[in-house]
């Protein structure tokens, strides 16, 4: 196969190159992933990279190019035997034209792209989906796609193909967001005003990404309008948003600034309860970005994000957590076929808890941060072959826990030793088309992780300390080499049908252990691979069948996968987790596996659009000492998962929408007996995760009323009802004794929500 590939390279004749960028004509936003096809050469075509840059090499002759991007009008362009640079400026498809019969022919891009296990969501596509408390949320929307689940209400964590929350690499403009949740996971850290798109890789991510074993969620912030000043925002019941963007120099550079804040605590101020009045409960997000095109060959971007949650009761408690991230990027075009991007990235997450204790205040804090340098080349050999080569260097620092207390406190201040690690990776990948019917992408990522001193490093056997060694600054403590393989193959049967398969291996050196899986609290503990903790590894194979019906109006896909997860860590029973230097001694290691079938039927266009997704899957763990080491269902094992999303355009001004989800109850452990200790009734647990929560289902409804625009001023009103038929979905089930008869036990279910209506006013000018 490779031989054929290289032979075809040698046989290249006189060729012409056309290159440039794809942008939105209105605001200058770059459009990554736009497809460019050649009418005269069916089966050939390329797509723009994440920065909107494309290169197309053509043989001699006159060709008609068709440029497609979802939600935009198709552009047609004639090229004629010239090496040229041309920027495509695309126009948004006006809503009226979404009528079935006038919709232009589409290029079946989901069929002809090598994209198994990938979901791309544009903010513009999801604006009509019902929202929770008036907040559009890309993370909530992605959980409506097959293979992605969120266990119960109030849990911001996403499980992708059986992986847990910490197995997802969440990136905003390439910077890692370690805790992408606000307020116990009811909201994500992504302000929809600031986000352009999200690409979720649940099977095989490109070799450029590494570091997590389940998925990559690559979120791109808006660049900012480089044509004219634009203001947008929203006023909601518990939060408001405002974004300003505009050109620095028209066509060359722009800025973007967005903020969001909740004000639950302001509502508390309205209560008459004096104790509640002064409490703090809020969060905010700030996104900022500037980009500037120095010349045709150089463009720079600077993006920053910060967000923080605060919760407090005066003189009693305080709790704050937040993420900070900044990215500097430089796009450089060496010559038309060679594009490079250089990124310098910083990201950080920390949390701090204050507790007033007579006679003083103590604080517990913890955090993780990383510095990242990434340099990547894209080489566009010809329309059938593209190479990526890159280098990725990440420096990690973890503060596992620090207890601050003053002299007269009943506590001793203490600090768990910081840990440092460095990850080096070089990666290479090549996507090529040996024939118009086949697309092959193969890649390799050679990863080296080293943990470094200074510090005392311990070793444990069965939880017992066996050895401790002191290391100096920069002295290597432990080193792991983890090569990762990526392969995906697409076979295009005809323009409406294709078969795809993929295989990948991934490794993860930054591990999160948590005791609070059911609510997304920031008390997670981050550890890195060490003498005791081996890197987590996964292997995944997947295969899928893709079929478009009726001129691309309906897209059907069936994907199946099997994923093995090795060296998964979990706490042993009754661990000591608070500020414990020996936390690694509290861990046990086992294996996981997940397999499933994902079906999706999308209706892309027309008055009614949306999708139905179904997942049948199983996720199991095998951990020594639990259930005799046998495979047992993991907490996130959800057998059936159904999502239905429907958006209906009633009139030009009125859009209605509904989503419905159904999930089998996840695996939990309920007591199977009782006994008395110290005259108190205790419960006996027999088999880990041997029981199920009740099934979860929920309907959300939304109505968006778009007001007539007055000149540039556009506005809309959105009403949503979360959990419209007020299903009492169990958050937890606890067992209590009957107060009148202590010998009797009954089950008490806690649920978080009944129906929650909300209203938001959105504007843009």
């Amino acid at each position, binding site marked *: 196969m490779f031989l054929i590939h290289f032979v075809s390279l040698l046989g290249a004749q006189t060729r012409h190159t056309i290159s440039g960028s794809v942008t939105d004509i209105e605001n200058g936003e770059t459009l990554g992933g736009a497809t460019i096809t050649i009418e005269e050469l069916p089966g050939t075509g390329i797509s723009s990279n994440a920065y909107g840059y494309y290169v197309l090499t053509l043989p001699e002759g006159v060709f008609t190019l068709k440029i497609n991007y979802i939600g935009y009008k198709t552009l047609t362009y004639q090229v004629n035997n010239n090496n040229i640079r041309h920027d495509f400026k695309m126009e948004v498809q006006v809503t009226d034209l979404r009528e079935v019969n006038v919709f232009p022919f589409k290029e079946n891009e989901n069929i002809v792209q090598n994209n198994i296990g990938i979901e791309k969501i544009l903010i513009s596509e999801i604006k009509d989906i019902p929202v929770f408390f008036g907040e559009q949320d890309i993370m909530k929307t992605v959980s409506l796609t097959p293979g992605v689940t969120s266990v119960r209400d*109030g849990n911001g964590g996403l499980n992708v193909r059986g992986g847990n929350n910490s197995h997802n690499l969440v990136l905003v403009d390439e910077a890692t967001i370690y805790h992408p949740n606000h307020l*116990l996971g*009811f909201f994500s850290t992504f302000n929809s005003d600031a986000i352009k798109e999200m690409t979720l890789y649940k099977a095989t991510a490109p070799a450029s990404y590494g570091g997590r074993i389940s998925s990559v969620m690559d979120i791109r912030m808006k660049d900012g309008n480089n044509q004219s000043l634009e203001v947008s925002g929203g006023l909601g019941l518990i939060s408001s948003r405002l974004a300003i963007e505009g050109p620095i120099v028209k066509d060359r550079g722009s800025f973007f600034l967005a903020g969001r804040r909740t004000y639950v605590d302001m509502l508390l101020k309205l209560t008459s*309860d004096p*104790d*509640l009045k002064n409490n703090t*409960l809020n969060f905010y997000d700030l996104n900022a970005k500037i980009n500037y095109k120095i010349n045709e060959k150089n463009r720079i971007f600077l993006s920053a994000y910060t967000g923080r949650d605060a*919760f407090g*009761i005066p003189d*009693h*408690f305080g*709790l704050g957590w937040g993420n900070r991230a900044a990215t500097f990027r430089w796009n450089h075009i060496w010559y038309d076929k060679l594009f490079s991007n250089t990124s310098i990235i910083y990201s950080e997450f920390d949390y701090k*808890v204050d507790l007033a*204790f007579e006679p003083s205040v103590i604080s517990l804090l913890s955090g993780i941060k990383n510095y990242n340098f990434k340099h990547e080349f894209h080489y566009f050999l010809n329309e059938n072959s593209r190479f990526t080569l890159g280098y990725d260097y990440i420096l990690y620092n973890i503060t596992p826990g620090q*207890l601050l207390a003053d002299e007269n406190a*009943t*506590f*001793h201040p203490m600090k768990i030793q910081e840990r440092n690690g460095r990850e080096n990776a070089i990666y290479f990948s090549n996507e090529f088309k040996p024939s118009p019917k086949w697309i092959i992408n193969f890649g390799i990522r050679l990863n080296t992780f080293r943990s470094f001193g200074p510090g005392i490093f311990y070793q444990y056997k069965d939880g017992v300390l066996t050895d401790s060694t002191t290391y100096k600054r920069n002295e290597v403590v432990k080193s792991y080499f983890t090569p990762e393989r990526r392969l995906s193959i697409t076979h295009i049967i005809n323009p409406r049908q294709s078969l795809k398969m993929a295989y990948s291996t991934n490794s993860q050196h930054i591990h999160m252990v948590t*005791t*609070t899986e*059911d*609510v997304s609290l920031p*008390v997670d503990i981050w550890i890195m691979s060490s003498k005791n903790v081996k890197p987590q590894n996964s292997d995944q194979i997947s295969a899928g069948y893709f079929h478009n019906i009726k001129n691309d109006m309906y897209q059907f896909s069936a994907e199946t996968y099997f994923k093995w997860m090795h060296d998964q860590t979990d706490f042993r*029973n*009754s661990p000591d987790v*608070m*500020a414990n230097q020996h936390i690694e001694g509290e861990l046990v290691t086992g294996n996981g596996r997940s397999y499933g079938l994902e079906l999706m039927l999308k209706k892309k266009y027309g008055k009614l659009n949306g999708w139905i997704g179904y997942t049948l899957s199983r996720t199991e763990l095998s951990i020594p000492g639990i259930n005799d080491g046998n495979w047992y269902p993991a907490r996130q094992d959800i057998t059936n998962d159904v999502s239905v999303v429907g958006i209906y355009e009633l009139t030009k001004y009125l859009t209605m929408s509904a989503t419905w989800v159904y999930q089998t109850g996840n695996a*939990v*452990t309920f*007591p*199977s*007996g009782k*006994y*008395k*200790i*110290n005259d*108190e*009734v*205790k419960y*006996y647990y*027999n088999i880990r*995760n041997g*029981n199920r929560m*009740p099934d979860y289902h929920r309907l959300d409804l939304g109505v968006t009323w778009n007001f007539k625009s007055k000149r540039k001023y556009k506005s809309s009103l959105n009403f949503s009802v979360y959990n419209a038929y007020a299903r*009492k979905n*169990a*958050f*937890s*089930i*606890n*067992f209590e004794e009957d107060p009148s*008869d202590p*010998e009797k*036990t009954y*089950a*008490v*279910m*806690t*649920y*978080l929500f009944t129906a929650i209506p909300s209203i938001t006013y959105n504007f843009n000018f």
Partner: protein
Amino acid sequence: MKTSHIINRVNGLLIPFLMLASILTSCTETVEFEFDTVDPELVVEAFVPESQYAEVILSKTVNINNQNTHNVVTNASVVLEDGFGTSETLYEVAPGRYRSSKIKGVPGSNYTLSVATDENISEIKSEDKMPKPVFINRLRVRKSILPEIEQIQMPEWEVIVEYTDPGNETNYYRFVEYVNGKVIASYVENDKFNNGKDNKSFLTCVDRKLTKGDTLTVEMQSISKAVYDYFYGFSTMNNIIQGTTNTNPVSNISGAKLGYFSAHTVHRRSVVIE
């Protein structure tokens, strides 16, 4: 009745999370539930209190909906040995309840327990060492200063135990709280964060009811790490934050899944509620 608690020192850091969760949660209802039925499992509760005769209670688990939790194991052979070479077979004073008549608890001494029942084939054995005693300096009860928040059950009363932790060793404590002689809760604590300090421990039982004239008694026990781990198992963060993985605490008895063997010191103080 809530079971044992971790004293709210560093673990009290969880309270904000709980409150935050509770602000958003709050609705509960009783649901029909089908409980599993499993084979009964042996439960060993054995203790050698300071200056008192040792006692061993043997029982078996019952199904959740059983009205009767009293499923005793009679006619077992229970042998206790102390660090001074004395060995005795405990006498069954009541069904399932076995007591020593020679061995009394002494701080610093080692105790070995072995149990044989008709049904259990595997050898049931345990060993525990009684730590040095630590005394309650002062016991206080006051109305809670914690803010009241609608729909969140906060302790109405605060019970504060003051004691001086010895600085030269790692200590583990258990506090058993009685109201008018009846056990209402127990708590465990270690000195990880306050070794050698004059400590104030807040006993944070949320549902204790006290009225004027009630006698509140706190028994302070110095316990071994294994016993601490056992009781801690009833009250890890997993259990505090509802709904996560439930597990049985790790027993310090080999051959039995459930129960503990504790040789502990005893120091009691009482206050009468005014």
